[in-house]
């Protein structure tokens, strides 16, 4: 059993958007769901009994649908600023 953040999440504050880069080795692309609730970004991974949620406080209002890209264990999320 492993708990806590063992992988890194970086947030980059760009001019027009927030970019979140999350390392999630071993996760399958179709097991990832990304939802924004207010200022919180929730990244859900896994399925069945092995679901994991990482909640990230963005600190800056965002709008629209998060655009995600997953490759080789790295999830990139782009969130347009409100």
């Amino acid at each position: 059993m492993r708990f806590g953040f063992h992988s890194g999440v970086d947030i980059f504050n760009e001019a027009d958007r927030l970019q979140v880069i999350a390392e999630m080795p071993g996760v399958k692309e179709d097991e990832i769901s990304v939802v924004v609730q207010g200022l919180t970004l929730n990244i859900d991974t896994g399925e069945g009994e092995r679901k994991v949620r990482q909640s990230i406080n963005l600190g800056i209002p965002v709008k629209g649908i998060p655009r995600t890209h997953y490759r080789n264990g790295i999830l990139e999320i782009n969130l347009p600023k409100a």
Partner: protein
Amino acid sequence: MERKKVKPDQPVLDFGLSFGGILNELGNITQDITRMVEEGKTEMSRTGEISFDKLQKRKGMYGISVRMGGDGMPKIDTFGRRPKDDTREPIVDVFEEEKRVQVIAELPGVDEKEVSVALKGTTLTIKAGKGERKYKKEIELEIPVKGEPKTQYKNGILEINIEKG
């Protein structure tokens, strides 16, 4: 067959952290181990962030992972980015099975063709990535092995299987 966990490596605290920072981390680790024993957990990790310069993009992750071995002794390992050469030390697990040794390394963000695995005696060297994202780890298997390591990389995880000698 139950998989037997093998000590993956000796802990090396060679981060560019201040000494006080490392001591603080070790203090926290002691508390964590106590809590793990109390809660019956077998594995945990602790990470933080170090800034190498004022540019946000140069922030690095570092971490210390603690696993409870079958003998009840905690095993401490490090992972993360080593500031001196910008190469990160991946999280690696070594399993001894009946006929083979299995090594699982977390190498997120590299391409399969950028992964190289070399075996010399019982020392396994993993190198991966290029540019800003590079990994390197030397693992002393402590188990005689033979033949070529078989590798498979998927979703940021490298699986290596080596036949026992």
